């Protein structure tokens, strides 16, 4: 198997290397990619969309349709993880022993299989794989998470002028919640942002994007032609494009954030949402 | 020649499909169910018969259903030849329906509703083949017939019928898909059309070797005609209930195969083209081989139905031979043989079935003295044998007469010898049965002297067909006129 794999890989690589000989030189400003479509973006982006970050302009406007489906991909991935992993009936293979923590004292009870679980509100179930969290990690993360989230918001909002945008910002926001789950525990994170919220936000994020496009359709222009939104925003067509991009970036951010968190919830707890990393 | 656009052919085909839901619906009331079958059979025959005057008047009835390929539609056309075949098969459906009632009820078979449904479907397909205006439609109904008859062949649903059904499908469908279909596509590719025409549709540019290959592909591809070596499905299919063997494996299915070959040789290839390069002779020899060899095999068969099956294989090749002679007399003989052999052979099968219903006997060696037990049946059997052998006063004589004339006309003297030899062989395998049935001593007889005929529903049809066999000798006019007209239509008015 390995030899076959190696042979086919080398063959493949050989063919690709052979093909490389016909490439334009690396970094050649006269190569076709540099001279055909992209100059239009570089030269006209600011005039047409009023967004200095050309990547953002192309991403969310010229090729906004791609990005819409890219968001849909993230959404479907999150939905797929939920679909595949989520356990709805807690019956099979329950862990052999259960751990409960007495909240006021922090004492941990170990209940053997078949034993009766404590009924009082003062106990909370904890993971069998649980290890006491480090105080320093807990405190530090608690301190930095707000700043991470702030940064995430900044990245979304400032995507017009600097690297960043909905995706990066959304991922950062999502990571902050994942970090919270990692440093505390999964149940607490789910308490902050539940499954329903993640699912609906995720769909809503994509919906904002697609809805903005459909709104343009209703305004009589083509799908995703933000210029048509200028009467709604009360600005001229160029500015409307810029604002439209902002709207969809927010949608993307929302969708990506919830998608990341949601995937993590399901993956880390194998769909039980009880215990996890 | 007049063209009449008419829905009649379509109705003639559809009527027995339309009756299927009715049969299913009244599945629990046998009398009503059989009434539907009779009604459909009667109407079908009337529709077909109503076209006779027009066709005899020189007209052709046409109906194009839908254009499926450029230059090829699903279309019906009634000419004299097709009408002849449809007339025979739709009439025999009425008779067989009556016989089926006697047979199926006599044996208390299971799944009778299914049986009548597929029987009706098979008849649709048969008439569809008869009325098809082009090769595509022909192929369509040919395949429909193959699949509709499968449940009939395997009606008993036991291990034997399972393996027979397997053989049946493999031979019939395998050859039609493997040989006839590509040949047909090729014809379409070179000629751009599939309509049957008076002197064929093949352009003269096709080299003889390719023509040869095409003819052979069609000849073996339409394996229902049982040309050797694609014949062994027919004896295997004899596991079917006898009415099925009677109508389908003596008349409808096998004649459809012969009919297809007839059509291909005359309507697609064209008589002049084939004669010009001597291809007819090749087909003649293949048919002759089948005729002789199958008769020899029939001699050695003990099962009555199996012997009849091998006899059928031989008789089918008479029709192929008639077509391959490509002379007016030969063609007439081939066409007439479709009708004459049908009535003769169906009588024989009816008799075999009646014997089985009345006594449960299947093998010839067990039939010693049966003539005393079932005199009517065995008399009919005798008449049927005479017709198939080709002796007067039966219809079979007339068709063989024309065939013999055809061989002379085509100067194929070897074929004349083949026909005569084969007739002798036919006599050799039929007459001993009759002899054994009637002329035996009381000790040899395996039956007591009591009369014990099959149910009346079985008897009437076989008397009727035997009678018609004789009648056809005396009054062959309707079929003869149709056949003569058909020859004119096929060869062009020369």
């Amino acid at each position, binding site marked *: *198997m*390995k030899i*076959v*794999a*190696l042979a*086919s*890989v*080398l063959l*493949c*690589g050989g063919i*690709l*290397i052979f093909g*490389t000989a016909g*490439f334009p*030189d*690396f*970094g*050649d*400003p006269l*190569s076709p*990619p*540099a*001279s055909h*479509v*992209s*100059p239009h*973006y*570089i*030269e*006209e*982006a*600011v*005039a047409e969309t*009023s967004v*200095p*970050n*050309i*990547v953002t302009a*192309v*991403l969310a406007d010229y*090729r906004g349709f*791609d*990005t819409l489906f*890219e968001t849909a*991909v*993230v959404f*479907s*991935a999150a939905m*797929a*993880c939920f679909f*595949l992993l989520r356990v709805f009936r807690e019956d099979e293979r329950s862990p052999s022993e259960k751990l409960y923590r007495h909240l006021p004292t922090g004492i941990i009870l170990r209940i053997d299989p078949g034993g009766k679980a404590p009924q009082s509100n003062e106990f909370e179930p904890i993971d069998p794989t649980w290890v006491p969290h480090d105080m320093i990690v807990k405190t530090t993360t608690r301190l930095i998470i707000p700043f991470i989230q702030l940064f995430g918001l900044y990245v979304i909002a400032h995507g017009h*002028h*600097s*690297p960043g945008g909905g*995706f990066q910002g959304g991922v950062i926001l999502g990571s902050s919640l994942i970090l919270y789950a990692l440093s505390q525990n999964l149940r607490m994170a789910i308490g902050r942002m539940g499954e329903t919220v993640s699912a609906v936000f995720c769909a809503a994020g994509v919906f904002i994007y697609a809805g903005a496009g459909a709104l343009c359709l209703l305004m009589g222009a083509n799908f995703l032609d933000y210029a048509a939104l200028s009467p709604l925003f009360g600005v001229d067509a160029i500015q409307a494009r810029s604002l439209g991009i902002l709207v969809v970036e927010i949608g993307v951010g929302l969708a*990506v954030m919830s998608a990341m968190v949601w*995937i993590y919830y*399901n*993956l880390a707890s*194998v769909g039980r949402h009880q215990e996890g990393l | 020649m007049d063209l009449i656009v008419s829905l009649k052919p379509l109705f003639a085909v559809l009527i027995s499909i339309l009756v299927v839901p009715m049969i299913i619906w009244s599945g629990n009331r046998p009398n009503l169910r059989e009434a539907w079958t009779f009604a459909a059979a009667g109407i079908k025959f009337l529709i077909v018969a109503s076209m006779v005057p027009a066709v005899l008047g020189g007209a052709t009835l046409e109906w194009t259903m839908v254009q499926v390929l450029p230059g090829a539609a699903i279309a019906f056309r009634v000419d004299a030849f097709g009408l002849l075949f449809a007339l025979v098969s739709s009439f025999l459906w009425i008779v067989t329906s009556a016989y089926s009632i006697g047979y199926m009820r006599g044996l208390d078979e299971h799944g009778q509703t299914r049986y009548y449904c597929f029987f009706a479907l098979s008849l649709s397909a048969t008439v569809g083949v008869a009325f098809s205006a082009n090769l595509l439609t022909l192929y369509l109904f040919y395949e429909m017939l193959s699949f509709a008859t499968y449940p009939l062949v395997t009606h008993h649903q036991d291990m034997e019928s399972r393996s027979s059904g397997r053989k049946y499908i493999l031979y019939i469908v395998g050859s039609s898909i493997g040989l006839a279909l590509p040949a047909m596509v090729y014809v379409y590719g070179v000629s751009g059309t599939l309509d049957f025409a008076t002197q064929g549709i093949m352009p003269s540019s096709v080299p003889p070797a390719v023509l040869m290959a095409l003819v052979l592909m069609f000849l073996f591809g339409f394996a229902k005609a049982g040309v050797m070596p694609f014949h062994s499905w027919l004896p295997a299919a004899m596991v079917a209930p006898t009415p099925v063997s009677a109508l389908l494996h003596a008349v409808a299915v096998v004649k459809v195969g012969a009919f297809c070959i007839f059509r291909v040789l005359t309507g697609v290839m064209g008589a002049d083209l084939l004669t010009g390069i001597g291809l007819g002779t090749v087909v003649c020899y293949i048919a002759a081989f089948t005729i002789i060899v199958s008769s020899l095999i029939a001699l050695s068969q003990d099962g009555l139905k199996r012997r009849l099956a091998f006899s059928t294989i031989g008789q089918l090749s008479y029709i192929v031979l008639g077509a391959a002679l490509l002379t007016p007399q030969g063609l007439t003989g081939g066409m007439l043989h479709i009708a004459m052999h049908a009535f003769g052979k169906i009588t024989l099968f009816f008799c075999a079935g009646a014997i089985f219903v009345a006594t449960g006997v299947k093998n010839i060696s067990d039939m010693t003295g049966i003539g005393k037990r079932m005199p009517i049946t065995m008399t009919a059997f005798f008449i049927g044998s005479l017709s198939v052998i080709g002796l007067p006063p039966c219809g079979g004589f007339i068709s063989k007469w024309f065939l013999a004339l055809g061989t002379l006309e085509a100067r194929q003297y070897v074929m004349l010898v083949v026909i005569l030899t084969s007739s002798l062989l036919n006599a050799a395998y039929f007459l001993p049965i009759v002899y054994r049935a009637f002329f035996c001593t009381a000790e040899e007889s395996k039956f007591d002297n009591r009369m014990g005929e099959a149910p009346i529903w079985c008897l009437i049809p076989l008397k009727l067909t035997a009678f018609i066999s004789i009648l056809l000798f005396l009054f062959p006019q309707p079929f003869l006129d149709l056949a003569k007209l058909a020859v004119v239509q096929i060869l062009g008015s020369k």
Partner: protein
Amino acid sequence: MNEWIAFLAGKFNYWGFIVLMMIGIYAIIAKKNLIKKIIGMNIFQTAIILFYVSTAAKRDAGIPIITHGHGMSGHSARAVDYINPLPHVLMLTAIVVSVATLGVALTLAVKVYRQYGSLEEDEIADSIRARAGGDQ
């Protein structure tokens, strides 16, 4: 000789992408561990992203963000000054697609593990065979 070096150096990013791609495919085909296969799949995807990003490169050009910001009415940006932004856009999409695929793949790997108690392809095949044998 110099030409040869220039040829090699002029396209070295492309060589890099090919090597990474080979690593990725090799891992997918030859490795038996499902997680390793998934890592290989991801490396394969990043290799293609590297290829695209390499096509965007432009000598002596800056990052594709117009430095003057708003209100630059007089002179517009010159294409040679900025790196080609289009491949970057495409690759943003590709990266996100790859993480989405990764999520689903890992999910399925976890499911497989819960079913067979193993991530090694050969062990899973053994246990499938054992179960099929048990059925009969």
